[in-house]
């Protein structure tokens, strides 16, 4: 890793800032996941890591390796893109599972806005039913 010593300050500072900022966001996300009480609140915390947490780290990596290789190294962007594209599937699954459980139990966690369901009166309608 001795070639890292040759990196000039003007590139090292932004890279360090981006990597530290990104990892701090990811860390805060996990702290939030640990400390928040309600399941629905806890859904929000890890998104810090999956949005600008990963975004800043990826930008820092792109910047550093583009300089080291003297050519644009951009393939890290794919990591960010795939994380953004794939996380909704997991969150939707988690959110709907929690909602289903709480509705079945008639949980006090659910205020009116969510207790009734998005579908109109007849409960047969589901997202999978085509128009």
């Amino acid at each position, binding site marked *: 890793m001795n070639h890292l010593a040759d990196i000039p300050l003007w590139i090292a500072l932004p890279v360090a800032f981006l990597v530290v900022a990104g990892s701090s966001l990811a860390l805060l*996300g996990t*702290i939030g996941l640990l400390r928040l009480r309600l399941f629905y609140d806890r859904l929000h915390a890890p998104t*810090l890591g999956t*949005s600008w947490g990963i975004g800043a780290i990826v930008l820092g990596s792109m910047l550093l390796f583009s300089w080291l290789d003297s050519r644009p190294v951009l393939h890290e962007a794919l990591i960010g893109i795939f994380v953004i594209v794939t996380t*909704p599937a997991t*969150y939707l699954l988690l959110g709907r599972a929690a*909602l289903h459980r709480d509705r079945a139990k008639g949980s006090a966690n659910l205020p009116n806005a969510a207790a009734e369901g*998005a579908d109109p009166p007849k409960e047969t309608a589901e997202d999978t039913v085509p128009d």
Partner: protein
Amino acid sequence: MGRLVPHPLLSLALVGMWLLLTRFSPGHLLLGTAIALIAGRAMAALKPDRPRIRRWIPALRLGVVVPWDILRSNIAVARLILTNGRRGTRRSGFIRIPLELRDPTGLAILSMIITATPGTAWIEHDRKSGVLILHIFDLTDEAAQRDEILRRYATPLMEIFQ
């Protein structure tokens, strides 16, 4: 584009990905293009609904607005976690948003935006009524937050896809 390139956007994205993952050279450009065209035709065999971008300007504007909004939400949620929810005064809750957006691609992108934004979580959407239920981490003004999502994301997505 028609029969030869049934999914131009998908093929273009695949060529881009191929060139990012390999070092750029004419050979890789050729190979990547061939693979992208074959993948586009394979996709056509599955007969998905082809998304059609009708207007590009709102799409480009969203490309700037969304990362900026996500950054602001990152800072806001990080601060709430650090201050223990303004010392216990933070209130979270659900909101219902009646959506006029019906296009499946538009809805998929809306779900990505909402999921990637800390502080909003996509909970349920009903295709028939168009009602979307979100969970908001810091619910301050229900009507204002509903309008903001409609104005900033749902309306531009409708302009793009419908």
